[in-house]
């Protein structure tokens, strides 16, 4: 045990930079931990950018996008982050209000975000659409619209996530809000009977779905690509909804501290480059925000392509989120 402990302590000390490392310039990027996991894009992006900048990229990862913003806000101007990568468009209004982010100065040219991009503080690195993913072995005819989902057979259940604790959960709330507007409450009252359960996060919901507990789950249009490419199965498919799909865009921002580090600006520009974007599709299972060097795996061509992408402005979400969640709670707790 003592040897193990020593090794771990030493490795820890090295990793924490207690022992002297080489005197390269350092870029510190705060992100969430599925980005830096060995399956995530982190290792690929780190290698590609370090080759370009001859610097040392240091990732610091916290639990998720929300924890990321909280952490940066708590650290304030003392933050070590040069770049914060992993917020989504639901959080950008709040992040902007913190005044901890500086304009990125990168042109929006070449970005492939549906509906265009005009934010000069936050730069997108990937995007996706929320979708109902279903099990073709259990469900012959999936709902063809949000209306059909809401009003369909009560015995065909769906697992959703809680908007109080998860991003996709909030996504469905906003999706229904953007389609039903003031009638969202009634829509939830109908959908309620189809909901098998509401999980705290995406993992739990998807776990229940793949265990066969429910034939449908709230996920992304690109989820089936994972099963096609990695599991070699077409069993799980996303349902195309005629009203359109709600868009989620994941973004990065340069902090005011990062604005003084030339590497930060270089990294922001790198986000748009193929060196970063090539890693996105098959690690994040989202769509790239800009051109990749090779065409995507053909499985992505077979994914649902929404006829319309739905969004609600970040400022409006920041202002009304609480009221909308209260409305959801009131209906769902009945």
């Amino acid at each position, binding site marked *: 045990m003592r040897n193990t402990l020593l090794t*771990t302590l030493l490795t820890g000390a090295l990793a924490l930079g207690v022992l002297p490392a080489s005197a390269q310039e350092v870029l510190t990027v705060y992100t969430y931990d599925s980005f830096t996991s060995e399956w995530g894009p982190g290792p690929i992006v780190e290698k590609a950018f370090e080759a370009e900048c001859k610097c040392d990229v240091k990732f610091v990862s916290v639990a998720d996008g929300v924890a990321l913003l909280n952490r940066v806000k708590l*650290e304030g101007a003392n933050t070590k982050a040069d770049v914060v990568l992993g917020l989504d468009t639901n959080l950008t209004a709040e992040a902007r209000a913190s005044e901890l982010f500086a304009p990125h100065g990168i042109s929006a040219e070449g970005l492939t975000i549906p509906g265009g991009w005009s934010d000069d503080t936050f730069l997108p690195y990937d995007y996706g659409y929320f979708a109902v993913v279903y099990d073709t072995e259990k469900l012959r005819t999936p709902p063809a619209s949000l209306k059909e989902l809401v009003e369909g057979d009560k015995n065909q259940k769906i697992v959703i996530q809680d908007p*109080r*604790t998860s991003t996709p959960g909030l996504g469905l709330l906003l999706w229904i809000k953007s389609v039903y507007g003031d009638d969202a409450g009634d829509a939830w009252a109908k959908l309620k009977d189809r909901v098998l359960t*509401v999980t705290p996060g995406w993992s739990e919901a998807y*776990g*229940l779905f793949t265990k066969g*507990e429910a034939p449908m789950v709230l996920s992304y249009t690109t989820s089936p690509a994972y099963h096609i490419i990695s599991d070699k199965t077409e069993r799980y498919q996303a349902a195309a909804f005629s009203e359109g799909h709600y868009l989620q865009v994941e973004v990065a921002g340069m902090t005011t501290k990062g604005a003084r580090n030339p590497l930060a600006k270089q990294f922001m520009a790198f986000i748009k480059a193929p060196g970063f974007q090539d890693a996105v599709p098959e690690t994040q299972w989202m769509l790239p925000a800009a051109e990749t060097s090779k065409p995507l795996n053909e499985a992505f061509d077979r994914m649902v392509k929404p006829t319309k992408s739905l969004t609600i402005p970040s400022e409006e979400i920041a202002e009304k989120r609480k009221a909308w969640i209260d409305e959801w709670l009131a209906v769902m707790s009945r």
Partner: protein
Amino acid sequence: MKAARRTPADPRFLGGALALGLLTVLIGGAFVGLIAEGARNPGAAWAAFDSYLLRIIRFTLMQALLSTALSILPALLVARALSRHPTFPGRHLILQLFAVPLALPAIVAALGLLALLGRAGFLAPPLGALTGEPWPGIYGLSGILIAHVFFNLPMATRLFLEALETVPTDQHRLGVQLGFKAWNSFRFIEWPALRKALPSIAGLVFMLCVTSFTLVLTLGGGPRATTLEVAIYQALRFDFDPSRAVALTLVQLALTVIILALLSRLGADAAGEANLSVAPRRFDFPSPRESIANGAILLAAVLFVVSPLAATGIAGLSADLQRLASEGSVHSATLTSLWLAFSAAAFSILLSFALVRTRHALQTQRRDAPPSLFERLTDRGAGYVLVVPPIVIGAGWFILLRTVADLFALAPIMVITVNGVMAMPFALRLIRPAHDAAATRHDRLCASLGITGWNRLRLIDWPSLRRPLLAAFAFAMALSLGDLGVIALFGSDAVKTLPYLLLERMGSYRTADAAGLGLFLALLTLALMLLSDRLGRSRQ
């Protein structure tokens, strides 16, 4: 703490006072951090008190009380059955298996239960045939209760058994000589020991159920099933509203104090046995009829606990275990898990031992006077840390330390401290019955022979406490292995443990890998428990 100063300086008081001081600093510090941050928006704390809060309080209390009753009552029967049959093949294995649920992340256990009782579960076809319609699964209150019983019944059984094993063998011999049948030996020998332990074990289970989060949301079927813990998590993680989080935590703490005070009326203080037992071993001979009944109880309990574990294991076998076992990230996560859990367990045992010793010394000294506040704190008081959510401690200390220290370096220390503290109430309950029984027997002897300090620890205490201490150590380690609540803001890079890796795989579609890691975690826990059992038994 004041009481400590008034009493004559017994060195045994010092340990308990230090342990309590440390707990106060840990919890108090976190609150100071959160309140300082929340002071910018003081109205938010009051805004927490609305009708929504009342509703979730009602639900929290109802599910926790029901879960406690459903876990404790069967646990009494199971523990008694185990104690009536001190040797039968597989007994040790059952006891060690009973510790495994504690080390499993909630979602892994939930999936194990659903593999049996879910809509697509193994038992769904027969259950559907029984009810005449498609089996709806166990979503709703029933699912929450089943899951809580799955976690807590085995744990409570082990704790009750620990209490039963402090009954001197002389009493059993006397019972046999008096011709006691099963009922009489329960009434006069076993029940007093169980009743003494009942409030504290029921309190522990209650606290665990109050703070349940993932299970309640996942199996509860909708936001009707919302506990205070969910609201605290939401306040801190999603809304980042520290004053609200503190207000809700205080509500949770106050409710627990009230319920535990009520529970304590179920108990009774039985006097310890001051004489050394002369009977060499147990002499009870359960009648054939009782043996059959006990066998049925044990079989039911084992089936209930082992089948979801087996389902978890079978799901794990479908993973590419060979690849997993050769992955560098799995190795480093295993090492990280082991050294964090080892350190947390060691810390936990130190804390518990200090508290147990101080409490016993205080109780002996006061004789028949009512217990002082100091004594109460070393007893039940210290256990209340369980209802302070780790995320509250983590966030509070993050705020306090963000400007003065390197937070990345502090993450492991934070994990060890919080896990150690959270495991302390369990360790306390495992150590206390044996310690108090041994101390009652040895205190005067040692005093008259002048054996004190290190000699006493080595010659007198260690031989009689070796087994419970090792069991408590393994238990604490198992608990720490499964935990991952504290580090949300600190950053996970330095503390990527097995459960962390498991959830990460689950979060990136790799459900088979996650199942494989679940199996691995369960086996690791079982190995730990078997090892501690072996070390505890040898040289006896």
